[in-house]
Each structure stands twice: as structure tokens, then as C-alpha cells.
């Protein structure tokens, strides 16, 4: 009786896992596969999925049809790169201070940082747009990077703070005994051993700013349209160019999905745990 119940349970779990993998992956795979067929194959009934018709023409055509896609990808890269780079430098310093140096109002600062995660973007978007139009910051890389930093920084600080607290104190004490200033200790002792979590938060910041849409649509006009904007515009304008539409979505997703998979260990350990541990 017991072995039977056991094997039934194992069967159900395997079945559940297979269902989960199928449901999670099939929409994405379907999107990727159909992006590799010409429009005529997709719109014939039933869809003509003969492998002989596989082609990358959608990926070539889409750059012609959507003038903004290429510059969108470039803009997204610039913005995501600088957001994560500045976020790491500024955020790791703040995280270290909050973890190790006694600073006045530490708890209030931590609470404030946590609270920033709870604002609906629209609340700050309206006044930000008004101020930034007056300062001519709308439609600039700088403007968007600043806004992204404001919601990337709290996450970077939160995760790195957790990590710095777990670093053994002895190293820093030894450095202090040798006469190192806090800045030197941070720079030459703490940072070199913190590369994995720095990488993880950097990747996370990159993915988030690469994917962001809401502020991008409000704060960009022509010059710094990002990849998500280019895709959304394309799908609104050429509603029947299905293959090219999907090709643009695949192109914009490849960098972030690949990054997430490569750095999955860091993301899972560093980031996810950070969210539930205070």
C-alpha cells in the first residue's frame, strides 16, 4: 500500500512539473518559432509550419519597417548600462555605510528606502514630467537614467546591505588596525570579495531598466525612445505584420533572458532572498 501511494505521489509531482514547464515555456517557444516563419505561412490555415519555410527574413525586414527599433536597442543599452553602473557605485557605498558605519537616522533611512518601492509610478511621473520639461530633460538619456536610478537604488542598497552584513567583521577590523580609512577598507577589502553579489544586483538593475516601459513612454519623445517603446509602437502601427512584430519582441528579450539565465545562481541567492529577509 505504502509503495503504491508513494509512486503515485511521485507520478503526480512529475506530471505537475511537466505541466508547469509546458505552460511556462510554450508561449515563449511559440513566439520564437513563429517569428521564424514568413507571413504567408502564419496566415494560411492551418498555419504552414513546414521546417523548409524557416527563415530569418522577419529579423531583417523589421529593421526596415521599424525605423526606431535599432536606435531603441541602442538607447536601451546605454540607459540600462549607465543605470546599473552608477547604481552599483552609489548604491554599494550607501549599502556599506548602512551595514557597517554608524550613521545617524539609519533606521529612518532604511524605512524610507523600503517605502520608495511602494509608490505608484504615476504619482511621481506627473510632477517629474512637468519639472523635466521645464529643465529640458524630457527625451534625454540623463533624465531617464536619473528616474531609473531612483527605483533601482533602493533595491541595490537593500540587497548589498544584506550581503555586507554577512561579511566577517575580522577582515575590516584587521584593515582598521593597519590604519586604513573606512573608504580604503571599503575599496580594497570589502569590494573585492563582494564581486558575485555586485554582479547579481548589476544584472538585475540592467534587466529592470532595459525592460521599463511606463516612464519611458512619458519621458521620451523622439531621440531616446527605448526598445520597449519601439516594440509597442510597431505592434500598434503594423498590426498585421505578425512575424516582424514577434521578431522585434524576441530581439529585445534575448539580451535580458540570456543575462538572467547566465546569472541565475546570483539572482536566486542574492536577490530573491533579499526580498524576504530584512
Amino acid at each position: 500500500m505504502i509503495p503504491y501511494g508513494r509512486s503515485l505521489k511521485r507520478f503526480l509531482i512529475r506530471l505537475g512539473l511537466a505541466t508547469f514547464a509546458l505552460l511556462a515555456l510554450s508561449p515563449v517557444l511559440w513566439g520564437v518559432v513563429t517569428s521564424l516563419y514568413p507571413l504567408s505561412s502564419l496566415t494560411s490555415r492551418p498555419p504552414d509550419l513546414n521546417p523548409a519555410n524557416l527563415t530569418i527574413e522577419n529579423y531583417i525586414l523589421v529593421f526596415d519597417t521599424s525605423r526606431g527599433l535599432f536606435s531603441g536597442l541602442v538607447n536601451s543599452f546605454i540607459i540600462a548600462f549607465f543605470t546599473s553602473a552608477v547604481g552599483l557605485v552609489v548604491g554599494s557605498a550607501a549599502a556599506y555605510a548602512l551595514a557597517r558605519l554608524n550613521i545617524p537616522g539609519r533606521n529612518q533611512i532604511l524605512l524610507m528606502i523600503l517605502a520608495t518601492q511602494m509608490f505608484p509610478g504615476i504619482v511621481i511621473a506627473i510632477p517629474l514630467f512637468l519639472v523635466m520639461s521645464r529643465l529640458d530633460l524630457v527625451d534625454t538619456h540623463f533624465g531617464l537614467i536619473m528616474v531609473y536610478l531612483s527605483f533601482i537604488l533602493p533595491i541595490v542598497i537593500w540587497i548589498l546591505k544584506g550581503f555586507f552584513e554577512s561579511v566577517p567583521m575580522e577582515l575590516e577590523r584587521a584593515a582598521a588596525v593597519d590604519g586604513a580609512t573606512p573608504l580604503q577598507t571599503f575599496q580594497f577589502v570589502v569590494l573585492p570579495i563582494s564581486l558575485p553579489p555586485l554582479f547579481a544586483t548589476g544584472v538585475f538593475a540592467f534587466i529592470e531598466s532595459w525592460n521599463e516601459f511606463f516612464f519611458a513612454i512619458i519621458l521620451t519623445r523622439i531621440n531616446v525612445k527605448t526598445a520597449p517603446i519601439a516594440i509597442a509602437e510597431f505592434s500598434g502601427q503594423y498590426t498585421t505584420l505578425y512575424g516582424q512584430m514577434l521578431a522585434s519582441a524576441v530581439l529585445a528579450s534575448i539580451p535580458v533572458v540570456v543575462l538572467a539565465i547566465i546569472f541565475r545562481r546570483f539572482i536566486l541567492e542574492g536577490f530573491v532572498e533579499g526580498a524576504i529577509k530584512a
Partner: protein
Amino acid sequence: MGLWFTAPALLILLTVLAYPIVASFVLSFQRIRFAGEGLSHQFNGLNNYAELLSNQLFRQALFRSIYFTLVEVAAVIVLALLVALMLNHPLGRNAFYRVVLLVPWALAPVANAVLWKWIFNTNYGVLNAILMGIHIIDKPIVWLGSPWLALNMILMADIWKAVPFIALLLLAGLQNIPIHLYKAARLDGANTWQQFVHITVPGLKASIVISIVLQSIWALKVFDLIYVLTHGSPADSTVLLNYLSWRETFSNLDIGYGAAIANVLFIIMFILALIYIRALRPRQIKEK
């Protein structure tokens, strides 16, 4: 000394967040018009808020946002818990399943929206093709064409995207439950269900509360899917609060009114934020 380390970060947060939050409250009490070069601000008292209460579209959007959030949170938590439990089982520890989780999560929300637009397509979409293939329906359904259905299809696409991250959170929570508790329970003769109720659920309580709060906040913010899939149509039936606020402000240029809607959303989220902070706090005390 420590202050110099935090100063740059705090400066960025204060300029980009603190001023706009205050300004947003001020704006919501004003009537703002485009006058010549700039904007004319005129004190308007509580009129924007009064207009909200009497406006039918706002009430519908509020109701729909609540519906959307409740269903999304319930569905995401249940599905994510199921996934997390399976991935925590020895059979599910394969790295492959972690990769499976990360793919929908990392996908750009706009790319996700385009993907579902294609799947839901009336004439060539795979959803209709499958349902017709197995003879559940005999003619294609216009998934995004009728009010209630369109909202629920958006909901479905959003749930699909949201489950992986919450599953990761809950999985991390599961892995923090000490294994010896289960061993002790088994020695005492507890069955799987009893172990789940008396060890897993209490051990996961904080993670579940945090997941509920975070997911509610994300569900209230939903925007990209609406923008790409329906633009609020048909007949404004997929207009949720966040989208409405954006549309009033940036399309209809009624900035004061848009700000008032944004503040309603802000208050709802603020309450959720307080719950989140409370959920985190007991652990802090325990650890110290």
C-alpha cells in the same frame, strides 16, 4: 563619515522622489490649463476629488482594479505556492526548472504583451486554433473584443508573467524552513498533509504576506499589457486606475484630475506598504 557614503544615493532619491510626491498632492488640488508658453495653475480645492466620486468611469476603473488585483493575487499565490512546493521536492530540484522560472520573469513586459496579442489573435492566434482543434469551440472567439472577456484575458497574461517571481520568493521561504522540523514531525507520525499545515504554512507565513503585498502593488500598477493589447478598449472596459490616471494626464491633459487619481492609487498602495513593513519587522527583532 558614513553620511558621505550615503549622500549621493539619498540625494538622487530625494530629488527624483521626494519633491514629486509632495508636488503631486499640490497638483491634485489645482486646475491646470495650457496657457501660452506654459501652464496656468489655479487653486481648485477638492473639486478634482469631488469629480472623481461622481465620475462613472473612475468608479468602474476602481472597481475593475480591485477585481483585477484580488483575482491576480489569489491566482498567483496559489499557483506560485504549488510551483514552489514542487520545485522544493527532490524531483524538482533540477536546475532546468529554475531556468524555466526565470524566462517569463526576465521577458520584457512589452514583449510579453506582444506575445499574448499574437496568441489571442482572432484569425491566426494559436489559442483559437487549439480550442477549435479539440472541438471546444466551433468558430473563433474575439478574445479582446468584448468587455469582460478582454479584461480577463489581460488578467491571464499578467498572471502567467507574475507567477515565476512569486514562486521564487516562496521557494526561498521554503528553503529557510529547518529540515529537522520535518524529521521530528515524521518521527511523531505526522503525514504529509499534517506536515504541510503545521510546519510549511506557519514557516511560510511571512513570505506569503510579503508576496501578497508585493503582488497587489504590481497588479495595481499594470500598464504595459493594457497599452499594447487593448488601449483600454472595448468601450473603456479594460481601463484600470493606473491607465486612467495616465490617460487623463498625458492624453486628455487634465493634469490636476490625473494627479487626483494617482493619489487615490498612492493611498491604496501606502496602506499595503505599511502591511509589508509590519510583515518584515518581527524577523528583524528575532534576528537581533
